[in-house]
């Protein structure tokens, strides 16, 4: 017997499988170490760049905060970013110096703070040739989130590029635009950018539909 969504719903198109929350135990499947499970041969995690990667080594950190102002300590985040030259490395290969994709999580143990070890991405051009400011696309999954939320992390010290970025400028409210800018701190030997994601209410982060 076939599911209804493997039959055409319109003349030519099927319906997407519906989304459901990743739930509180998402770590068992996508972040084994955090669930307390032993690692498999290779795991997808939060170190996108090795010391050999081109570009400026940085850390991205932040928290996820709910509508009550409380920390969300069971979120899983996925990052997608260009390399230092503005190219996406689509072939995921842990032997390569840089990967465009990674995962991290907020937990009780890390006091609700996620972290990526990466390099600062270069500028990426849209098809129309307009350059976007350096950015990292983030997807947020968690218990109570029925379908992942997409946002972008931009860098405070790229003011000129940010001012010209067509995607940042598509956010109508200049106040809300600020929710996409990570602030720079001096970390241990390398810059650290802090980016808190507010799911709801005052200072709510801009989320994108694409």
């Amino acid at each position, binding site marked *: *017997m*076939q*599911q209804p*969504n*493997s039959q055409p719903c319109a003349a*030519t*198109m*099927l*319906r*997407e*499988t*519906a*989304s*459901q*929350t990743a739930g509180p*135990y998402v*770590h*068992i*499947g*996508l972040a084994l170490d955090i*669930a*307390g*499970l032993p690692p498999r*041969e*290779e795991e997808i995690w939060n170190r996108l760049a090795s010391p050999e990667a081109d570009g400026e080594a940085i850390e991205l950190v932040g928290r996820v905060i709910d*509508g009550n102002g409380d920390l*969300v300590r*069971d979120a899983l985040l*996925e990052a*997608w970013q*260009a390399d230092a030259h503005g190219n*996406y490395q689509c*072939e*995921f290969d*842990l032997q390569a110096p840089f*990967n*465009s*994709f990674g995962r991290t999580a907020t937990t009780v143990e890390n006091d609700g703070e996620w972290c990526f070890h990466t390099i600062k991405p270069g500028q*990426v*051009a849209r*098809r*129309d040739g307009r350059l976007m400011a350096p*950015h990292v*696309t983030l997807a947020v999954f*968690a*218990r*109570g*989130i*029925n379908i*992942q939320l997409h946002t972008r992390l931009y860098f405070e010290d790229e003011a000129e590029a940010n001012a010209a970025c*067509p*995607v940042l400028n598509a956010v109508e409210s200049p106040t809300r635009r600020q929710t996409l800018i990570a602030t720079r701190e001096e970390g241990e030997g390398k810059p650290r950018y802090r980016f808190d994601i507010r*799911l*709801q209410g005052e200072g*709510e982060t*801009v*989320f*994108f*539909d*694409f």
Partner: protein
Amino acid sequence: MPRNDNKRFVERDRNWHPPAYAPGYKTTVARSPSQAYVSMQAPSVSELGGPDFTRLRMGPHDNDLLLNFRADNEAQSGLPIGERVIVFGRVIDQFGKPVPNTLVEMWQANAGGRYRHKKDGYLAPLDPNFGGVGRCLSDDEGWYRFRTVKPGPYPWPNDINSWRPAHIHVSVMGPSISTRLITQMYFEGDPLIPLCPIVHTLRDPEAVETMTGRLDMARSRSMDCLAYRFDLVIRGEVQTYFENQG
């Protein structure tokens, strides 16, 4: 570098998927954005590309939950307790096109409804031979398969007496971060499905049917295990023919 920005995906129907705010599932109340999403009118390679996991090294039993967490202790080592099942299906896009070599990941509770997770303190015991995680790449024609035990239902704090139907969490990447999808597979005929507040986040009963794995006797193995088929339909890739707007 192949460019990824000369493709488009069928727009995601946000009335088909569950809304962010679905108060019957109480945790959504404080975790749902209240502002409108900003629609990306001209998606770029930052949205249209995605990771290819063909080179991710996997172990021989990564998709076999009957074998991938056997107890180290010889005396206890054996098979997990529960109904042996094959869960398989095809990853296709909305135009019916198979999606090959894409990463499918899954996780689940054991046969008693207990997760192997630090935070799960349910009364049902852990199974020393069951971890509850699997992954594989779809094959050249989009097929994926796992072997596992059927997970048990379990109670959870939402309403006073809420129970999750037996379910397996399934995650699929597809060709782009735009096609990324996490869902749950339910088992055909489970009477707990229509009682579940998380299932009820969906407004269209047809959408619930897309999450229902179907018993497939033809693929089951006599004297061994039953089979459930669960096809994953991800956003369709649209060919763009007319590039010039002028």
